[in-house]
């Protein structure tokens, strides 16, 4: 006698039904602003037989601006990828590798603008590097007339981009590495006579790259369209396309806005084309890799070369960033500091005292915006991940792509449209509208940071609590949240750092009236007050760094009597 199958148990409380909708709501919050913004940007361009587009296409600086955008974007991404892979392939898991791992969080926390300002202070003709070798080696008594900074070739910008991209790609690589079975595959290849690097390239890289693809596209899109770094480090007359778009936007005439919209449309096309070409290059590289495997790639020489090169470049960029920040700090307390001197003659707190009230106000506003965006993102991400666990939903590849959507579609492309929308709604210039715009960029990072720890939490804790009679909410609050305190705080620190570093959304949605540390630092960068720039750059760096420090310290204090909750290293 056949038994009738029974319905499986489905708790259908109101809260449960609401939770079930969390992933849909999150997708909507990621897709809607990007889609609406893109539409708002592109639609006006098509008016009058695309007259704005024709105006942009006849702009004299266009070929150079486009070339700059492509060159700085592609070269910095390629360079950062190669350095990342060199570090991972050659270092194994020894001491140097662990040191780099520890340096990652502070490096990631440095906002793009602060990194660029630090680098500018370092490499400018009157910068620290020139001072260190002058006058004894160079004979310079005055800053030389060299275009090192804002060089027409965009090399300073490329360097700055790489310094920020290497830590990001390294982090993504370290997250993906455990899923590639790297250690055993390299060992296997070595036992067959291949070198370490050859074993990594043939055995690990294809699996690894598949997981790095979206982060790399995000880096490429970002690098091609970055605005704040381009203002600080990039060339002028013409600048990169994205920087020119912002200049057009700030043009009070109406034609400026049209030019900006057309330029932004062109910029999307440019980024998408670059990604397609990159994708084709991947196919070619994959062919070459297969051929190398057939040929029995051994590359013993690569092993000896990769390690010192990877180490030098990895630590070189870390050193560049850190010494740049040190330069910002030193300038902010410098009294008299004349050119060839390597250090200031006197130190003083005058700059900090004078800028104090403005700094405090900017810091408060920056924090408020970052806190609102991060808390909203955290609530959504927790709801998504909890819904995933409770209703056994399996996130598809589409979910991951949607997460990367606001990171791959350039900000410069959809923010102008969003700005028009915010103007029409009358919310432009309010700090919470800026926070809402930040949410679109904070959300993906908070999700990426928290998803892996959440999904890998031992499912037996959940089961144990359920079998003890704990209702879903109690289970979540008393078991899941405390067990995940450490990754939750880290995700919050990441969210804060992302929000604090945002330049373009703050500038555009804030209508120039919402003055955060980042917009102020970038605005100051065109001036000559190095002491003030140093103070703002340092404050902008210290804020996210404090977030990461708290994320490490708090769990250690809360769980100081719980050995089972110690950080696993």
């Amino acid at each position, binding site marked *: 006698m056949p038994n009738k199958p029974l319905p499986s148990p489905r708790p259908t409380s109101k809260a449960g039904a609401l939770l079930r909708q969390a992933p849909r709501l999150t997708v909507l919050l990621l897709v809607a602003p990007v889609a609406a913004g893109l539409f708002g940007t592109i639609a006006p361009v098509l008016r009058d037989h695309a007259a704005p587009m024709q105006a942009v296409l006849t702009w004299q600086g266009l070929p150079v601006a486009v070339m700059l955008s492509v060159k700085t974007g592609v070269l910095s991404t390629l360079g950062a990828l190669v350095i990342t892979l060199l570090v991972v392939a050659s270092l194994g898991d020894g001491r140097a590798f662990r040191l780099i791992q520890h340096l990652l969080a502070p490096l990631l926390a440095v906002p793009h603008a602060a990194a660029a300002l630090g680098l500018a202070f370092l490499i400018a003709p009157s910068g620290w590097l020139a001072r260190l070798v002058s006058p004894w080696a160079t004979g310079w008594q005055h800053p030389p007339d060299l275009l090192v900074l804002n060089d027409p070739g965009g090399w300073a910008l490329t360097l700055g981009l790489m310094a920020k991209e290497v830590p990001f790609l390294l982090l993504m690589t370290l997250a993906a590495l455990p899923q590639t079975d790297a250690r055993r595959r390299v060992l296997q290849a070595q036992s067959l006579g291949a070198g370490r690097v050859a074993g990594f390239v043939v055995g690990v890289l294809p699996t690894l790259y598949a997981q790095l693809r979206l982060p790399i596209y995000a880096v490429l899109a970002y690098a091609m369209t970055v605005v704040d770094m381009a203002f600080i480090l990039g060339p002028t007359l013409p600048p990169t396309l994205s920087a020119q778009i912002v200049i057009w936007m700030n043009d009070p005439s109406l034609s400026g806005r049209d030019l900006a919209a057309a330029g932004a449309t062109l910029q999307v096309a440019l980024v998408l084309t670059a990604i397609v070409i990159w994708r084709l290059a991947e196919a070619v590289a994959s062919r070459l890799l297969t051929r190398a495997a057939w040929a029995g790639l051994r590359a013993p020489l690569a092993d000896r070369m990769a390690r010192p090169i990877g180490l030098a470049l990895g630590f070189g960029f870390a050193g560049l960033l850190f010494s740049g920040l040190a330069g910002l700090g030193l300038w902010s307390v410098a009294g008299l500091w004349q050119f060839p001197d390597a250090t200031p003659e006197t130190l003083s707190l005058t700059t900090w005292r004078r800028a104090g009230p403005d700094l405090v106000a900017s810091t408060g506003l920056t924090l408020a915006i970052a806190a609102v965006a991060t808390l909203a993102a955290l609530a959504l991400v927790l709801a998504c991940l909890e819904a995933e666990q409770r209703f056994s939903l399996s996130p598809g590849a589409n979910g991951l792509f949607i997460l990367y959507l606001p990171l791959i579609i350039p900000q410069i492309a959809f923010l102008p449209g969003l700005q028009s929308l915010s103007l029409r709604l009358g919310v432009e210039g309010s700090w919470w509208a800026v926070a809402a715009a930040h949410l679109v960029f904070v959300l993906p990072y908070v999700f990426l940071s928290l998803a892996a720890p959440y999904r890998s939490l031992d499912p037996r804790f959940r089961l144990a609590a359920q*079998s003890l009679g704990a209702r879903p909410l109690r289970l979540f609050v008393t078991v899941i949240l405390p067990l995940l305190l450490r990754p939750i705080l880290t995700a919050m620190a990441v969210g804060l750092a992302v929000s604090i570093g945002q330049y373009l959304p703050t500038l555009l949605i804030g209508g120039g009236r919402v003055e955060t540390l980042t917009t102020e630092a970038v605005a100051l960068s065109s001036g000559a007050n190095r002491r003030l720039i140093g103070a703002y750059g340092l404050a902008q760096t210290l804020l996210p760094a404090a977030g990461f420090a708290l994320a490490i310290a708090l769990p250690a204090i809360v769980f100081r009597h719980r050995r089972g909750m110690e950080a696993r290293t």
Partner: protein
Amino acid sequence: MIKDLSLNQLRITRAGKEMIDLTVQIRGGEVLTIMGPSGAGKSTALAAILGTLPDAFQRSGQILLNGQEISTLPTHERRVGLLFQDDVLFPHLSVGANLAFAIPTSVKGRQARAQMVDDALNQAGLAGYAPRDPATLSGGQRARVALMRALLAEPCALLLDEPFSRLDAALRIQIRAFTLQTIRDRQIPAILVTHDAEDAVAAGGQILSPLGHKVVL
């Protein structure tokens, strides 16, 4: 109240392959042993009784606890306790808080709950351990806390998923005796899943394969 757990033609298949076929009544204080090699689906039966069976499995038949069908209830309302291979104490809570977590919310007042925790610790020979960090306890102590925690939730049935297999030989006999005696004292129906013949014999009840055949040792 007589406690009993009945499986009535409980059948579970996956992709057409039959994994579980059990019809059995377990009275209070009895321990049914389900025995078989690993991968034979022993734990699948426990998942069905707990209500955590993945969607890939098809289930039919009844699961009756004290005569009441529980298979449509969510896990936390089933009143079925569970002991794992490891103790699965919550690492962020003290021993006392781990135990208090299990006490039904109908017991009000910090004093009353603390008293129940102390009583449970006394029974387990762990008086004064409430403020301790579970990570500082020995394996045997943790196993006893885990058992006490499961019992404080006042379960109507207890499922034991190879709870002794990670303990060393001497400790194993001691914890096993303590657990089985407690089950008999409380008159709770229990199901033990194991691949160890000694465990099965010690349990003293029926021994069945996942497909319901009597296992002769």
